[in-house]
């Protein structure tokens, strides 16, 4: 393949670099290592990420 591989993308939540082990597929889910947000690959060239829709998580007391 001649496509230049992008190995990280920016987390839209916390601006951290999110690494990929292999070329990402569209709609793949990844977790940001910094803020643990779940992210969806929304474009692949370049790779961009958006927060994945979440089941509302209840953390309250």
């Amino acid at each position, binding site marked *: 393949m001649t496509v230049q591989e992008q190995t990280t993308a920016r987390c839209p939540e916390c601006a951290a670099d999110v690494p990929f082990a292999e070329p990402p597929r569209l709609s793949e889910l990844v977790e940001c290592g910094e803020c643990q947000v779940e992210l969806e690959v929304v474009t692949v060239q370049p790779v961009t990420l958006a927060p994945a829709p979440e089941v509302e998580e209840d*953390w*309250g007391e």
Partner: protein
Amino acid sequence: MTGRAGPVRAAVVGGAGYIGGELVRLLLGHPRVELATVTSRRLAGRRVSTTHPNLRGLTELTFTAPEDLGRHDVLLLATEHGLAMGAMRGLLDLADTVVDLSADFRLRDPAVFAAYYGGPHAAPDLLAEFVTGLPELHRKRLRDADRISVPGCMATAAILALHPLADAGLLGAGEVTVDGRTGSSGSGSAPSAANVHAERSGALRVFAPTAHRHQAEITQAVGVPARMTATGVEAVRGVQVLCRVPLADGVDEAATRAVYRRYYRDEPFVRVVAARRGTYRLPEPKILAGSNFCDVGFAVDPHGGWALLVAALDNLVKGGAGNAVQCLNVRFGWPERLGLEFPGLHPA
């Protein structure tokens, strides 16, 4: 209203939860109330004392399905927040007096509600009808109130800590911060990945780092903006709040103490605790488990200018069910301590 002859027939809605169970315990021991019905969706038909094993031998009641709830003198609502506001109109048909322990009717301003609870209120027109169920601030109005909304557990502690100083004009300009600490029963009885024992045990979990919901209730009651953080601590029951407040010029410890003593002199359930000796100098929740006391204390910085206010209570009693019963006592003209005499334990 003055006292009445026969017992008051009461129902607890949402009696399988922790606040519901505490209401059941207190009402079973209340000499003027007949606890007739306890509802649960999940456990209809099951014995109440299987869910709340402390009540074994004290009651033969079984849970009633919510749809079978009939007329009573008083309804006490202990459902998770969001339920009461939708169901309220129907419930108001079933009883003259309704006491809601959920968060739904605590905030008078529907916009504030929406900002803190993430959506519009389902019955905004009813908000104004509810009286805040805090006898220390609203005793007079509670005497004939038939829609009562009991404040949140940490809010109650913070309000009882802050209100005397605010009311007496002793607060200076500047930010009031509230640091709440709560045991695990504060988040209810539903199991989740966050409250399984091995995860929740020994926690110091800053679950609300910047703006806990109860700060809206505090601001509403005390009239000063408050910033509130909250931490889950190792305890089942118990809430403690630390409020850091600016003091008006020249306010010292003696002046502060005088305000609290005057303010709470005749209160049956608030004790001023600010000792200079002994192991228990400032309020701590562990000796309050099961009791309806809110202990309130303070420490004024020796160099002046600010104070730390500390309050503690049992979130399920003075922070919820006990406070609701105290409201009923006020409402029905009964002695205010009735059914709420348990003082708490030491050691604990």
